[in-house]
């Protein structure tokens, strides 16, 4: 295979990996902070896609959708945390898993009753509607935008968590929620805020994925598995892990499809199994107690 062909496929892997990062970062944030495995994260992704569709339908403006959809989903996330998740923090994790699992169906049916079950898509913004020639072929310029956007998001999130007071509070909460509360910080509000932010990130990824993939109510359940795999590979609750895990899984997926198309489905599971065997806590996770 000529080098340009290899590079073209590597670029496909990068674009898929960055999309996975946007998908999974909210999940890892919520898990790291609240110790909640939020199975409804895929629903936030779906709600974001539909909120984006509605915004584009109403205003014709993709950029507005990119702003409005995460806000809307963030509000839904905050309401969900306050109303139903908070009373469950002291219960065993399985209760939270069951609850968030149930919400997958609730959100799916709500969306279905509003928008119906037909397949929809979001048109890419005019600025990125075309394609550019890279490595001997056309590459959609929207995917280049997604790569850039995702990497900027990673830097912004890193700065917020590592370099701001808010980030310090969040990190403190991750290590010891009770002690943080003892320092006079309203940990409940921080929890709600983090859950809302995680939900908003899920919603954001739904809008971002809209022009690449199609939107249909069951889409949320479908992306849950890849998102969970990224979190397991990268390390539960680690931002760096989420980024590296996504890029790794993105490449594994693409090269699996290039060289072993018939077993490509199993490729990402091989990677996950290998990581779990060698480093049970994930690439950047805290060692297991």
């Amino acid at each position, binding site marked *: *295979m000529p080098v340009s062909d290899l590079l073209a496929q590597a670029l496909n892997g990068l674009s898929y990996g960055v999309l996975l990062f946007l998908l999974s970062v909210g999940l890892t944030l919520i898990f790291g902070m609240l110790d909640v495995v939020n199975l409804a994260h895929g629903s936030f992704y779906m709600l974001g896609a539909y909120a984006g569709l509605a915004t584009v339908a109403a205003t014709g403006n993709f950029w507005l959708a990119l702003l409005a959809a995460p806000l809307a989903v963030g509000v839904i996330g905050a309401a969900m945390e306050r109303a139903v998740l908070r009373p469950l923090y002291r219960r065993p994790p399985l209760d939270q898993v069951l609850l968030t699992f149930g919400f997958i169906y609730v959100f799916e049916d709500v969306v279905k009753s509003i928008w119906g*079950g037909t397949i929809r898509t979001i048109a890419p913004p005019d600025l990125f509607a075309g394609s550019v020639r890279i490595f001997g*072929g056309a590459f*959609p310029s929207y995917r280049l935008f997604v790569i850039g956007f995702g990497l900027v998001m990673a830097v912004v999130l890193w700065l917020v968590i590592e370099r701001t007071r808010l980030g310090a509070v969040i990190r403190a909460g991750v290590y010891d929620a009770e002690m943080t509360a003892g320092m006079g910080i309203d940990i409940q509000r921080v929890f709600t805020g983090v859950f809302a932010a995680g939900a908003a990130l899920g919603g954001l990824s739904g809008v971002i994925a809209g022009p690449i*993939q*199609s939107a249909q109510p069951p889409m949320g359940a479908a*992306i849950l598995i890849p998102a969970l795999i990224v979190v397991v590979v990268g390390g539960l609750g680690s931002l760096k892990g989420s980024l590296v895990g996504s890029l790794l899984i993105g490449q594994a997926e693409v090269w699996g499809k290039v060289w072993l*198309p018939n077993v490509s*489905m199993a490729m990402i599971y091989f990677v996950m199994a290998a990581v779990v065997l060698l480093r049970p806590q994930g690439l950047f996770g805290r060692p297991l107690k």
Partner: protein
Amino acid sequence: MRLSRRTFLTGAFAAAGVSVGPWVPKTLAQGGPLKIGLVLPYSGVYQVLGESITQGMELVFAREGNKVAGRDVVMIKEDDEMQPPVGIRKTEKLIESDKVDILTGPVHSGILMGMRDKVHNSKTILIVSNAGADAISRERCSKWIFRTSFSNWQPNQPMGGWVAKNVSKEVFITAPNYQAGKDQLNAFKETFVPAGGKLIGEEYPKLGETDYAPLLTKIRQSGAKAVYAFFSGTDAVNFVKQYDQFGLKGQVKLTGAGFLTEPDVLPAQAKAALGIITGHFYTPQLDNPVNKKFVSDFKAKFGGKTPDGFACQGNDTAEVIVRAVKAVNGNTQDKEKLVAALEKVQFESPRGYFSFDPKTHNVIQPYIYVREVKEVAGGLDNVPIDRVAKVADPGTGCTLPA
């Protein structure tokens, strides 16, 4: 108003009496409702297919005043969730506890294969309204099973020769990695290779794939002149959209099985689908009086929705039931007679003149239409540009009555 227990019980008994009271002996229940079981997806990715098939059936039964040979039509709808274990459980429920007169469905070939023995052993009449597993018209055929939709072989086999002759002899073929996908591409190869066609590549991405970028890059790098693809549902939307985004549309002609551009996916694909050529037994654009009436009646009844091939399958399934049950004067207990009546059913369907192949109980497609996606009044649609007549499944290995 508070409902007292007595009023409730009275009401309940009255309601029970209106249908068939438990005191009516079974042999006299002939005038009871004609129970038709539907095993279809009513949730998940494929629910739109289940809905279309159901609506096609409802249109016919409504025309008949929901009565066939004096018996009220009752449709018992069961959601199979596109999962074989669920579909099989629902089948058992419909056969054993609802005691349906006729069973219809499913969409999923895996469910059909799982249902097959239950249906065959209990001598339940099943009219397959979608699932295309070739085996049901071949080594796994059954006297009790008819199919109004298609075998996977049917829409694809004529396309191989057509593509080799009219599009290109250097083709990359692709379909999802499951039985139906492989069946369809094998049928294409049957006529493509003898017509001098060369397979530049052949690939089976997973069902439910969301990112076709690696495959599309491979297709470009392969130098193929055309692609023949079978995808449906969200797969079809993602594949066609990304095919356009990666700049392949202008360079490598996209052709495929009809599902690639059916009306359930076409609006979402929008302009990315323009120019795609597919083979299928139906398109709402067919210029015949039965189809024109079908399209306008369907639109009137279902809020302006254009019928698709799935709706046509539902329509023909119900049409077959109505005609056969009338032919036996509503007596569905004598199953031998009902099967004989079903074998004889022939009528003008929106797709052309409908008849079963007595050899396999599978529909003989009056035509496989070669269609191209074009702009028409009201958006995009599959416009017929050519057709191949009388396409019957070879039925290899099927010896009825079995």
